[in-house]
């Protein structure tokens, strides 16, 4: 069905909303990648089959939706209109949910979420601290829509911003609105989006492109996947508005190879948008023409860098170009190209619909709007959280995340991926926005927030990121290619107990050179994880280099597993489990580890029920 005008869109939306009202109960099952890995598809199938069996077809609507964000507790099922949340639902729970809750109105106790702090059971989604403290402007629609059905998006008000921009605003007005909103790029750099659009619009050239960067490579960050997978039309709508503002008629969505579901849903979204006339020729009868293609990445982190991504789109290995020529002027095929990341594009319809002043009301002086973080690592409530810019780190980690599991102590929060750094526990009251994170030596990046506890070795973390970057450096410029390798060699030496005095100073010297002389941001920011750990956790480096100890018990060469005489009851489970046959002992007597045979795999410590085995 082709939609020619705003009036037609509005009419369709009303019809869809009336249709939706017919269902007495709406069951929303999260079908994001995280929940799918927990068996969401099986749960959806079970609901459909069981509803049919129980004859509930008419009054109950069952829908697999976009990612709800609370990945820790998958598979998530929300029963509307009451908003009851059931967590870790398995297919075998489905018949009971339908008969007891949907038909009988009873709450099933065992499927409720238990707050890790208060130990209280919580029935309604809106009361769960994880959701309560968020401001879900971008993610809010995910739990209500089936990402493969454009009608769901339209029912929620979708494509009205596109209609408004195309029929009531000039391209210049759209650019001005985005500029005034203060929106900054969510991909890492935080460059003002409106300014970027304006430069691209003003650049000389006949053909222009817009690109959606969905090559989300930062380890520990998956908000872009969740948006593209869970609400692809919001991204697409943003892109079409951007193309109109800039004067582009072609666009690309460059998606990571590791995100098959995002590719599938985005592809479906493009097809549906074409059928409705939101893509293609004469959009909203204005004569504006725009088309989008999907390109898949090949598993190279560097392709998240704009010029490398464009080189890869040209069918070449993705190596970046020097920055004296900006891609907004000469990008893809040497033509003006505007690239924004997924989350940035998804913000655009919100700004156009509600106005820049509304958007500016959320956030801090220099960072407006909300930001989605993926709160992961050693945290109780793992998942995606969307909060206003400027929320204190403490509120995110403890208020929303529920703190560190197992009563362990928080050590650091890593942000910004391999280009970012580690923010230590004593900066926990810092408001989180672009500028504050940069001030702390880290950066916003795309929004990964990895929580580290006392059992995380910070030297090992620095080593981890350099090892990552060593593989991902494209090799084009020397400082990045060689510098990262040399820093990694030194860190390897330190972690293996062969660190010497002067290593730390040498690391600092190489880091500075790499930072100042690399061609692109990958090399330029590569030393950040090392520099922040050196700055905030210098004592751990001293322990490794001077005392040959790893205080967190991680670096294999610096630790030894030992069995506590007091705690061991001689059950023999560890000896049985040890793949190297390194544990000996008589039954009911304290066992001992033969350190010549021990490979430090840690199976024994995992096996022991008395917690008698620990690394030191």
């Amino acid at each position: 069905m082709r939609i020619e005008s705003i009036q037609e869109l509005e009419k369709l939306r009303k019809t869809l909303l009336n249709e939706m009202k017919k269902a007495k109960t709406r069951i929303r099952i999260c079908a994001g990648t995280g929940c799918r890995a927990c068996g969401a598809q099986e749960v959806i199938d079970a609901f459909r089959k069981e509803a049919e069996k129980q004859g509930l077809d008419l009054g109950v609507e069952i829908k697999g939706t976009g990612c709800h964000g609370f990945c820790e507790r998958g598979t998530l099922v929300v029963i509307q209109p009451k908003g009851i949340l059931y967590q870790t639902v398995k297919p075998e729970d489905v018949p009971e949910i339908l008969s007891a809750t949907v038909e009988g109105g009873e709450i099933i106790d065992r499927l409720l979420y238990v707050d890790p702090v208060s130990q209280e059971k919580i029935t309604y989604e809106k009361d769960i601290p994880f959701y309560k403290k968020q401001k879900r402007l971008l993610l809010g629609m995910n739990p209500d829509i089936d990402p493969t059905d454009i009608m769901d998006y339209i029912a929620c008000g979708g494509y009205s911003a596109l209609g408004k921009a195309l029929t009531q605003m000039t391209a210049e007005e759209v650019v001005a609105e985005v500029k005034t909103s203060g929106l900054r790029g969510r991909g890492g750099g935080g460059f003002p989006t409106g300014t970027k659009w304006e430069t691209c619009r003003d650049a000389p050239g006949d053909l222009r492109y817009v690109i959606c960067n969905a090559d989300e490579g930062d380890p520990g960050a998956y908000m872009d996947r969740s948006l593209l997978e869970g609400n692809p039309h919001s991204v697409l709508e943003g892109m079409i508005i951007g193309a109109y503002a800039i004067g582009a008629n072609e666009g690309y969505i460059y998606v990571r190879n590791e995100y098959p579901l995002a590719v599938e849903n985005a592809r479906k979204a493009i097809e549906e948008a074409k059928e409705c006339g939101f893509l293609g020729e004469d959009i909203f009868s204005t004569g504006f023409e725009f088309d989008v293609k999907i390109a898949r990445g090949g598993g190279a982190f560097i392709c998240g860098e704009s010029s490398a991504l464009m080189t890869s789109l040209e069918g070449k290995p993705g190596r970046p170009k020097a920055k004296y020529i900006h891609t907004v002027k000469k990008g893809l095929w040497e033509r003006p190209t505007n690239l924004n990341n997924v989350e940035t594009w998804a913000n655009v319809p919100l700004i156009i619909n509600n106005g820049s002043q509304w958007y500016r009301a959320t956030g801090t002086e220099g960072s407006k709007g909300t930001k989605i973080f993926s709160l992961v690592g050693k945290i109780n409530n793992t998942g995606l959280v969307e909060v206003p810019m400027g929320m204190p780190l403490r509120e995110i980690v403890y208020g929303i995340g529920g703190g560190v599991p197992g009563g362990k102590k928080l050590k650091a929060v890593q942000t910004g991926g391999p280009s970012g750094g580690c923010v230590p526990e004593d900066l926990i009251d810092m408001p989180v926005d672009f500028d504050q994170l940069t001030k702390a030596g880290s950066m916003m990046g795309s929004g990964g927030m990895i929580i580290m506890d006392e059992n995380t070795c910070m030297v090992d973390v620095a080593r981890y990121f350099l090892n990552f970057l060593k593989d991902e450096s494209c090799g084009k410029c020397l400082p990045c290619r060689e510098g990262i390798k040399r820093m990694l060699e030194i860190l390897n030496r330190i972690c293996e107990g062969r660190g010497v005095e002067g290593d730390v100073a040498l690391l600092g010297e190489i880091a500075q050179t790499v930072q100042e002389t690399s061609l692109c941001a990958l090399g330029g920011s590569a030393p950040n994880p090392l520099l922040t750990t050196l700055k905030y956790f210098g004592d751990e480096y001293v322990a490794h280099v001077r005392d040959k100890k790893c205080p967190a018990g991680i670096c294999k060469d610096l630790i030894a597993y030992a069995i506590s005489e007091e705690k061991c009851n001689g059950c023999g489970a560890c000896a049985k489990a040890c793949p190297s046959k390194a544990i000996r002992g008589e039954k009911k007597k304290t066992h001992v580890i033969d350190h010549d045979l021990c490979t430090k795999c840690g199976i024994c410590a995992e096996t022991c029920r008395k917690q008698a085995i620990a690394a030191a």
Partner: protein
Amino acid sequence: METQNLDTIIESRGNDSSQLIGILQDIQAEYNHLPVSALMQVSETLKIPFSRLYSIATFFKAFSLEPRGRHIITVCMGTACHVRKAPRIVDEVCRSLGIKAGQTTADRLFTLETVNCLGTCALGPVMVIDGKYYGNVTVKTVGALLKKYEKI
């Protein structure tokens, strides 16, 4: 090799450089790796120098020029998995199979790969075997998982 299939893959995407990586991915999905003969054919059909295809195939991590095993094990090495001891999981798989990451067992049963992040951080450490996700993997559970696939 059935050239028919290959032609279909190339045709479905047309002669469009922005789809080149996609073409190679489809070929790899079909043949389990990128056979040289297939690259030759892509080169001829799309009039792209073979050297360029080779440079793409070796630049991007997703491609393998060597035949891979029947079962592909992917261990996520994202930061969230790393702090939840993913390196120990890789060590254990390596020890059990007698190969290093990136290698294939002599019997061509398993290939072990690592990936930077799968974005399923809540389940970490995560291991994927033939597209099926296994979350909260421990050193202890690795053995049983591998045994399960040995028989398939």
